[in-house]
């Protein structure tokens, strides 16, 4: 590949203008989302279909931006060249594969290769959007910006995510990319950069919300001939995928933020630490780094400023604790990722004992815009204490899942019922888990709580990295607490006793509760343990490990009490405390549940006494297997088919029957039988 080194700011601006003009030739532009969600749903096939269809329709297709000849650019600008581009996450992951058509900005959902000719025809003939592929089949909501999902959003960090070819430096440059870096290097001293970031009030987006300007200041002022910057892309919180989407959708923005951070703190070397579980993010960022180097935006004497900076990518190896700064450093140094006591903070003594500034992916994604437009513009959105926007990963039992960016201070209601469209399947909202294993569960009374660092802390939760998992009435809060404790326990590095032993004991207690063998004393012990682990653990992982327990205890104590006093799960979610039952009214006797059952617990009901009986089943269907679907049999036996029932003693509680039932006739009810220690079954009072 040729060296395209940009020597100075003027050259950068000329290149940006040239690329912007070339970009304008690509019109209309069909952008196929290739975020993880859409890819899994077949987005790559959709993109291939678009290319094929456009080629079929004759000249004018250009897939690339490699336009060098200015005359050719002008000629094409006149006519417009239809183009197909892959992009990073477009946000509405639930409805993928997503396709955006520019310049109009129509957003199509659930696009299959068969739909492609219709879209291409509408694009070529300019007949407006294809209504049946719009998210609400509603013409007034043809553009992404008009859809409920996007309306409460303020996409600043995600401005180009989902709209550009990720990792292609020319697209980023065409949109004014690296202008912030040029501004910092040529107009600002490092101190001025830090002052701007401080004035903007940017706070770390990785969870703790530490002021970024302050971190940079400490690193800059720390003594040392060599300093490092690190971008922390070890996004391990279950339920979080913001950093992944940003890295996969607009890696150059993060890289530009990293270079500016390096300039501000005086580092000449840096690392990007990205989870190995995100192979696409790793590949795209690596590619972005190589391209930035080729364009002279990374390496020696960047833009002729005399500032040099080299960056390398390190893949994580699957340890949640490595999101903690000191553990991350240990991992880069090639050791087990175990935290050490702080202070000294990494800003003073970090990687190889040198001052090291570690910032989260999203934090650095905020930096280019902040520098380019200034602190005052940055503060236009958000709250005084938490300025700017925050990206949230919306998942769980919500109608529309996906990636959203809203101003800090938006309410949970805006997010869950506005963008998210409320609870799936018309169920009742129960709680939202925010901030992963370090965060907590909030309830319906918190729906109008502003999402900012202070408000959430007061409620006992934290923004964390920004994962929002919505829970409905079918989730048991004790089970959710057990789930997080099991996560933290297995991810505990084992260095300090409170975390290593404390989380294990807490997990045992919570497991007892979900299995119906705990007592009230266990509940008291759990609370005591949670308090001591929070006070005494070495690092953030351990200190925050009790949070899910403490918040669920605070807001859902009744559920804990039901588990320890009555051995009952009010949500009928704890498998040891439920039985499966088939509603004979809803059951159509199709037998799919019996076919799905691995233990032979589901049998057709005997007409005489209503109990499961395998022998009678054979008579009914004329075949030992589930009823056949041949038309004749269907017509003949439809009315006569007997419902099925479940033998509680044989039931493994695998949920297979419930999943298999086409009529929703299988339901969970409080457990009918308990097994005593000898394994025999006995009926409890709670049976009916």
């Amino acid at each position, binding site marked *: 590949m040729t060296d395209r080194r940009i020597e100075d700011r003027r050259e950068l601006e000329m290149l940006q203008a040239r690329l912007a003009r070339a970009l304008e030739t690509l019109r209309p532009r069909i952008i196929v989302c*290739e975020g*993880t*969600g859409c*890819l*899994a*749903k*077949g*987005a*790559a*096939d959709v*993109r291939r279909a678009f290319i094929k269809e456009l080629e079929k329709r004759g000249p004018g297709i250009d897939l690339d931006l490699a336009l060098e000849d200015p005359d050719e650019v002008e000629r094409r600008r006149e006519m417009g060249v239809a183009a197909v581009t892959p992009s990073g996450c477009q946000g509405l*992951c639930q409805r993928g594969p997503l396709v955006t058509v520019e310049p109009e900005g129509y957003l199509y959902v659930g696009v299959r290769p068969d739909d492609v000719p219709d879209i291409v025809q509408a694009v070529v003939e300019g007949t407006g959007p294809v209504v049946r592929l719009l998210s609400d089949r509603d013409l007034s909501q043809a553009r992404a910006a008009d859809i409920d999902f996007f309306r409460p959003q303020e996409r600043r960090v995600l401005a180009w995510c989902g709209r550009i*070819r*990720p*990792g*292609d430096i020319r697209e980023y440059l065409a949109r004014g990319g690296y202008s912030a870096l040029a501004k910092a290097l040529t107009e600002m001293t490092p101190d001025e950069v830090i002052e701007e970031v401080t004035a903007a009030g940017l706070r770390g987006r990785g969870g703790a919300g530490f002021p970024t300007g302050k971190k940079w200041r400490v690193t800059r002022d720390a003594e040392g001939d060599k300093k490092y910057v690190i971008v922390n892309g070890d*996004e*391990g*919180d*279950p*339920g*979080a*995928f913001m950093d*992944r989407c940003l890295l996969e959708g607009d890696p150059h923005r993060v890289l530009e933020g990293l270079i500016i951070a390096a300039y501000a703190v005086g580092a000449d070397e840096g690392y990007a630490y990205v989870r*190995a579980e*995100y*192979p*696409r993010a790793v590949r*795209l960022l690596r*590619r972005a780094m190589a391209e930035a180097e080729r364009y002279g935006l990374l390496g020696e004497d960047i833009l002729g400023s005399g500032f040099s900076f080299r960056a390398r990518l*390190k893949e*994580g*190896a*699957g*340890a*949640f604790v490595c999101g903690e700064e000191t553990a991350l450093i240990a*991992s*880069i140094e*090639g*050791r*087990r990722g175990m935290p050490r006591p702080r202070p000294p903070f990494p800003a003073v003594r970090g990687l190889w004992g040198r001052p090291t500034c570690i910032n989260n992916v999203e934090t650095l994604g905020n930096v280019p815009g902040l520098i380019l437009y200034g602190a005052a513009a940055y503060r236009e959105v958000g709250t005084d204490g938490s300025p700017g926007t925050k990206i949230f*990963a919306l*998942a*769980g*039992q919500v109608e529309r*899942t*996906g990636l959203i960016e809203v101003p800090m201070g938006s309410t949970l209601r805006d997010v869950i019922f506005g963008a998210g469209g409320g609870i799936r399947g018309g169920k009742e909202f129960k709680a939202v*888990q925010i901030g992963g294993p370090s965060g907590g569960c909030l309830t319906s009374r918190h729906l109008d709580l502003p999402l900012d660092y202070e408000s959430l802390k007061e409620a006992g939760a934290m923004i964390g990295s920004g994962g929002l*998992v919505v*829970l409905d009435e079918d*989730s048991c809060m004790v089970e959710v607490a057990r*789930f*997080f404790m099991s996560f933290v326990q297995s*991810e505990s590095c084992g260095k300090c006793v409170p975390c290593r032993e404390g989380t294990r004991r807490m997990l045992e207690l919570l497991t007892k509760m979900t299995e119906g063998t705990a007592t009230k004393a266990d509940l008291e012990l759990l609370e005591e343990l949670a308090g001591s682990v929070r006070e005494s653990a070495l690092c953030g992982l351990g200190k925050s490990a009790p949070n899910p327990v403490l918040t669920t205890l605070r807001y859902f104590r009744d559920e804990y009490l039901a588990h320890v006093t009555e051995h009952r799960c009010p949500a009928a979610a704890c498998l040891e405390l439920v039985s499966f039952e088939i509603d004979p009214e809803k059951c159509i006797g199709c037998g799919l549940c019996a076919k*799905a059952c691995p233990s032979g617990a589901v049998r057709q009901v005997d007409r005489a006494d209503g109990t499961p009986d395998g022998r009678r089943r054979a008579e009914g269907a004329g075949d030992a297997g589930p009823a056949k679907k041949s038309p004749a049999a269907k017509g003949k036996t439809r009315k006569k088919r007997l419902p099925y029932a479940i033998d509680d003693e044989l039931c493994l509680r*695998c*949920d*297979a029957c419930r*999943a*298999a039932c086409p009529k929703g006739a299988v339901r969970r009810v409080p457990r009918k039988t308990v097994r005593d220690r000898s394994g025999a079954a006995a009926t409890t009072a709670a049976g009916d």
Partner: protein
Amino acid sequence: MVPAFEGRRFEKLNDIIERNGRTPSSLIPILQEVQEEYRYLPEEVLTYVATALGLPPSAVFGVATFYAQFSTEPKGRFVIKVCDGTACHVRGADTVHFAVRRAAGLEPGRKTTDDLTFTVEQVNCVGACSMAPVVTVNDRRVYGDMTQKEAAALVERLRKEAEEEPVPTEGAGDGVGTAGERAADGAGGAAG
């Protein structure tokens, strides 16, 4: 249990070590590449790497057993990971896990089938929460909105694939590239 580790294979190992540099900070990238090559970390390799980097074997074993990515036991041709992140968990990841294990024919307590066709693991969040519950195969193919039925069908498809295109149980990772696999990792070429 561990397949004989032939001497010639150390050549590749030397390449990997040279490429990453003989410094302690290269340990994790070296182990990552080695695992990609052999699909697990044989004991002989760990001691060899320790010697090459001038590290005590205990340090290398420590790292190899600390990180979830590394395995000191051979894995199956298809490593099926059932995500158990929060979103997947509340949407029924446990029952999907149960179905995958059942379809793969795993005995309780086992993760890998005797014929080294399947390894089934329950893993932390893979970061595809919006299509929970999620299952991945060999980290490349991603399947969302899984049900027990689809999970079982997926295992059967993989089994068929293994029967039709048998590959050596040892060797360079996964040589087969199905449409899905290329799709999930294919944008690299396309982005060129």
